[in-house]
């Protein structure tokens, strides 16, 4: 926060969720329905140095191909753009219905250099899981967590 914005009053009641951040940065062109990724998959964050790895494991094998199609390395790189990853690599593990994302240089220097309270980036898996994704065909979203996603 090197050039902070000073506010005399909070003008927005929005909480800082992924959806509000997304809508704050995207221009509105059209909308589509999406669900947060945690409806379809689970994830764990690991770290080595200044590199984070995020597994993404389908809750149901039936979701796997849909996840492979939508949760690409580019999409994850954009979602973590505020961390300025130098590179995002995706590895597929079809026998586990899982993917592994490796994000280079997203830990502000890692356990050594980072000033982040969570220098390991343990919480980053839940940022990934907040990513909006189109529901797979036939998915009963059942209202829970449905996001009206803006699409360029």
């Amino acid at each position: 926060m090197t050039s902070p914005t000073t506010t005399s009053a909070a003008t927005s009641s929005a909480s800082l969720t992924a959806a509000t951040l997304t809508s704050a940065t995207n221009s509105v062109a059209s909308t589509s329905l999406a669900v947060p990724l945690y409806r379809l998959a689970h994830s764990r964050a690991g770290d080595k140095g200044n590199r984070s790895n995020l597994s993404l494991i389908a809750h149901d094998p039936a979701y796997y191909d849909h996840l492979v199609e939508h949760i690409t390395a580019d999409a994850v790189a954009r979602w973590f753009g505020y961390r300025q990853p130098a590179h995002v690599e995706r590895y597929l593990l079809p026998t586990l219905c899982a993917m592994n994302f490796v994000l280079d240089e997203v830990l502000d220097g890692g356990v050594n250099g980072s000033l982040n309270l969570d220098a390991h980036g343990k919480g980053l898996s839940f940022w990934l899981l907040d990513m909006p994704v189109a529901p797979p065909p036939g998915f009963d979203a059942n209202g829970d967590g449905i996001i009206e996603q803006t699409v360029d």
Partner: protein
Amino acid sequence: MPTAPFLIGSASGFSGDRTDAAGPVVDTLIARGGPAALMYETLAERTLALAQLEREHHPQGGFDPQLDDLVGPVIERCLRHDIAIIGNFGAANPPGAAQRLHDLASAQGIPDARIAIVHGDDLSGPAYRDLLRECIGPQFDDLDVVSANAYLGAEAIADALRGGAQIVVAGRVADPSLAVGPAMAHFGWAADDWERLGRATMAGHLLECGTQVTGGYFADPGFKDVPDLHAVGFPIAEINADGSCVIGKADFTGGCVDPRTVKEQLLYEVHDPARYLTPDVVADISQARVVDLGNDRVALGGVTGHARPDRLKVNVCYRGGWLAEAEISYAGPRAEARARLAADVIIQRLGPDLPVRIDLIGAVSILGDDRGDMLRGAPHGSARDVRLRVACSQHDKRQAQRIVREVTALYTNGPAGGGGVRTTLKPRLNLISCFVPREAVRSGWNMLTPGSTA
């Protein structure tokens, strides 16, 4: 070659893990009756540097400070039931830890335990300066080095067990090697049996973080529920003669082992799944499969391995200046706005020469980046209980102290209603990793001669 499964229990997954972990694991190993070992993983990346600093002040110390509590409750039962104990709890002083374990066993009526010490990981001595400079580069000369340790593999552990050791005390070894060593010794695998070593390495990988495979670091209410998380049990791997394994946990404990917990831990800290590098082998889980056997047991198959790397990883820890952190809280109406104003005051007071990280705990803290891009880009919210955190890292202690003073001064000079200031200023240990040729590291083991290390 034995054909029955070999059981390896995990009794610790990191420095600072629970000290009541081992009891139920050892109870289970004894009840099942087969050949078994118990492993303790207690070293995070910088634990060894802290241990080295401790040893500078207390030459007899420098091993895991919780050693008595970790091993004391089970050492007698393990020795009497032929359950080998393998741990990296030796940290910066494996001989000291071995002597301490000898004293513990003696006090419990076993004065003749055979305790082995693995040596060779410590590269902090003058003999290795040229090697480290070559691997790190000229910047090595500017580092105030505290510790330098190579990641050793399973061979010295296996050799010590084959040599009759009942307990093996190591410093830095690759975490999975703590399981690969006893499996190698038990089954008589060769050091270039890449398939079996690859499989056993992934068994060790599942064990090395303790309960992270049995429901720890996993629970997410409503999506991934874990029974009795407060009493989560530590894992036990049943290693087969071909290196494949079934992962389970201690009897009569909480937690769960299912395909989800196993997959999450299998990929934990993995980069390329086809190339998981350890000193022993390049393990390959690109075709791994898990099968739920029920009753908290999951089989891992489809793992293989390739020839081990030519080089060993070395962690070098050095003094890295000062970390200053200071916090102040705002509550009630417009709390977030007042916290943001306080941040603005701090930044204007410190000026551009002293960059700091700003967090608003209760609004955006750990997801943000050091530059503050996320916090700046986020809509200003209406959080009603917000704690401002300011942090900086500086080589000059007096510079670091400035943020402590400025945040403290917010009490009277900042926005309305600021309270609860806490500040810390502490020295930093930084880490740099490099790789050295395997042959440059001379590792081995020796049996403790009690009293010789005092």
